[in-house]
């Protein structure tokens, strides 16, 4: 059945002027190990780069990391750009230190869901949590 359900393609990157490369590499490794096709656009990725990469590779999901606290400004409008580019229904996930300081996570999550993300993850999330969610969201009932 794995053959029929094609390998999922994920666009992965660190948004904005953020240069945190280590987590990005770890995520790429973990996601690739879990069987995904990872298109890693690396650090300092603009919204346009995420969209262009997703269009060209026909990606199933966009995974945005932001570690430096400016996530809210950097991520705003990404969903709208995807809609404009004709991939409005693509799934989007975001995680990292999305905002500065100790804000209530529930509020932060709500804010990012409101921006059009399907899921948002707080600091300290393990890659496996996101992998489990991805598989569930795309209808894989059991791990490959």
């Amino acid at each position, binding site marked *: 059945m794995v053959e029929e359900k094609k390998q999922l393609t994920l666009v992965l990157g660190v948004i904005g002027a953020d240069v945190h490369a280590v987590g990005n590499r770890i995520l790429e490794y973990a996601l690739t190990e879990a069987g995904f096709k990872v298109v890693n656009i690396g650090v*300092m990725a603009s919204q346009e780069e995420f969209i262009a990469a997703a269009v060209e590779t026909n990606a199933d999901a966009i995974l945005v990391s932001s570690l430096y606290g400016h996530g809210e400004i950097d991520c705003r409008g990404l969903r709208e750009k995807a809609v404009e580019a004709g991939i409005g229904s693509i799934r989007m996930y975001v995680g990292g230190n999305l905002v500065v300081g100790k804000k209530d996570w529930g509020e932060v999550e709500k804010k990012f869901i409101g921006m059009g993300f399907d899921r948002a993850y707080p600091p300290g999330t393990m890659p496996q949590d996101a992998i489990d969610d991805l598989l569930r969201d795309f209808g894989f009932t059991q791990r490959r």
Partner: protein
Amino acid sequence: MELALLIDFGSTYTKVTAVDVEAVEVIATAKGLTTVDTNILEGLEQALEGIKPRFGGVLPEFQHRLACSSAAGGLRMVAIGLVKELTVEAARQAALGAGARVLGVFAHQLTAAEIEQIDASCPDIILLAGGTDGGNKDTILHNARMLAAARCGNTIIVAGNKSAAEEVRDILVQAGKDVRVTANVLPELNKLNVEPARETIRATFLEKIVEAKGLRRAERYIQGILMPTPAAVLNAAKLLATGTGEETGWGDLVIVDIGGATTDVHSLAEGHPTRSGVTYKGLPEPFAKRTVEGDLGMRVSALSLLDTVGARKLAVLSGLPEEEVVSYVHAVHGNVELLPAGENQKIDTAMARAATDLAMERHAGTLETAWTPMGAMYIQHGKDLTKVPYLVGTGGVIVNHPNPGEILQGALYKQEQPTVLRPQKPRMMLDKDYILAAVGLLAEVKPTAALKLAKKYMVEI
């Protein structure tokens, strides 16, 4: 004696170069008017008459008789992809590197109006890309269906998403198109793969375009028209940079080729960041990169050069009044055979220098400063050519100039433009006998001899 006859069928002149391969020596060069409309051989014979005296009035037996051509409009292509910065750019790079004149590039799903545009320009070859391997299929399939209905452009090379390639071919074959499928120009997002497409373009050029342009007659006399002339120059550049098994090359280099219609820049360099702390962004560029500036030329494109650069700048560079510059530019545009005399030489020099400057600016990579919470970060787009050790000048205006260095200096790094990664302190070389295209041809059969020839005839400025 092993002799080679190397022929360049240009748009105006047919140039021949006779080379003694063993002695690594150019024996004679001559030119005749290109006669592609009547019988291509007439112009060639005229040129051959010109070299006869050097052989005592009788043409000897040439073991190698090879030609390149930019006659009859050169190799005219259209490149199609999906996203402008990605597969469209990859397809454009593949076409340029094959020596084509790129008439237009198209992104996303083609519209009826764009098909009309393609029909109007009627390209020799259409390069159809789109989607990484396993990526987007819809656009390339849509574009194949649109192209199936086009009247012009019957030769189509497919270099897109491999998962859609067969379906694309079927659609086009059913419409009666001649279709060749080759490897994707962008198999993965960060992996440019232009060589297979370049090879396919060249093979198609040999097979079909030579015939269509009335060049086939010439093939009775010569062994083959191997490639478009710009591809021969790029071939020579590659050889000069990388060398052969027996003879080392020069290493990285940049060639500026100023013609009447275009200014071409070739860079043979990886162009990775030379400074630490610089992040590379965007599509990787090919080691052998060619850019063509259709608005910067000395004759046919003189008016667009004037528009782009501005009369004031040309006036400052030449030290002559603006009115004089403008009237000279109009004169040479109207009469492409006009050669500069007296004061006008200064205007030609200014035009060539401005063309070199702008063509190099557009070719070289750039450095962008991004202010982040961690301080200033540098992002590089395109190639860093600052440490390239050689800069070579070719093309009529440079080759025949009393002080070619004056023109070539336009390509160098500028203090006031620190974000453009131009060569900083290269050795400046001159293709004084105008033999680079011939070297590129000879490289096909005798690479080491061709390399030695190039090294021998390039002189330092």
